[in-house]
């Protein structure tokens, strides 16, 4: 029977190679719980474990001591809790409660006042700081706008100077004529100074002078 179940609890190497080389055992295998007792163990009665007499007496003594101590501690704690509960109930008259509330209220008021003082001074400081910051930002913005305005004015001035050369609907005919008459070619190289390398300036020879 066990052999039948062994098939279940082993990984057979794809069942292709049936020899033992492909057999891999699963560790910690055990008889499944639903299997009946093995035939060899059916009539086996396990021996009862018997403590020696002395040891048994000693064990009982220790156990009794332990149980007694635990019980006493438990009772003591229960008693203490009950007493405390009684004391608490005695204290809780309406007048006492009111007095306690007043005490807490006054204390809370004091704390609030202390914190309020600190808060007022802090908020004042913060407001002052913020005011300064805003003023500074306004000043910065003014400067920035001035710079931008300056740039814009410069640009406008520049454009006004160049405006005469702009081609409009009226002058486009002439511009087209000029452009068609003078084809340009940007396909040239420049040297490191940005000058065209294909145009060589004529040097005046001494004979021509």
């Amino acid at each position, binding site marked *: 029977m066990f052999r039948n179940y062994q098939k279940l609890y082993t990984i057979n190497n794809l069942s292709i190679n049936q020899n033992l080389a492909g057999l891999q055992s699963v560790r910690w295998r055990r008889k499944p719980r639903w299997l009946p007792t093995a035939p060899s163990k059916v009539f086996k009665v396990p021996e009862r474990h018997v403590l020696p007499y002395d040891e048994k007496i000693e064990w009982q003594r220790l156990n009794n001591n332990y149980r007694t101590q635990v019980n006493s501690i438990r009772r003591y704690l229960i008693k203490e809790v009950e007493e405390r509960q009684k004391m608490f109930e005695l204290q809780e008259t309406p007048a006492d409660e009111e007095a306690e509330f007043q005490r807490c209220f006054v204390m809370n008021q004091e704390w609030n006042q202390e914190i309020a003082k600190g808060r007022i001074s802090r908020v004042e400081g913060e407001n002052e700081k913020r005011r300064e910051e805003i003023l500074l930002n306004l000043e910065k913005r003014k400067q920035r706008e001035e710079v931008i305005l300056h740039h814009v004015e410069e640009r406008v001035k520049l454009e006004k100077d*160049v405006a005469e*050369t*702009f*081609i*409009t*609907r009226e002058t*486009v*005919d002439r*511009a*087209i*004529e000029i*452009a*068609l008459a*003078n*084809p*340009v*070619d*940007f396909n040239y190289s420049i040297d490191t100074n940005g000058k065209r390398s294909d145009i060589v300036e004529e040097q005046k020879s001494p004979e021509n002078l």
Partner: protein
Amino acid sequence: MPTYELALMLRTMARPELVSTLKRTTDSIFSRGGFLRKLDFLGDKTLPYRIHKNSQKHFTGSAFVVTFDVPPKCISDLMEEYSRDVDVLKRQIFKIEEPSNAECLLGDELQPPAYRKEVIQMMKVAAKGQKEKYPQNTGLKYYPFQK
């Protein structure tokens, strides 16, 4: 209005037709409140590849560069209008940007690595993560500090 540059390739035509096409092209800029700064003719060019337009094959064209100012929202309209023009083979509009005043740092970059600012910075960063090394000649048979 920003300045734009129109690279224009017109089909090869006789002079009067070319002039009228150019007038038409520039007129669409004027009608949108723009104006031209420059009009350059780059000559009749052989196209780098055959362009097929309106059931015709084109191998040559007249190249123009038009520098103009126009409100930015009109650019797509212009592109669309030129795409419908039968005489325009190719067109593209570029925005002209002011050249940046970048400093030339080639001299610094050509220096040996140890003198380059970037490398010096990198060495500093690398040195931060490393432990201090103590000399080995303490006379002991073992390294007394934590490795």
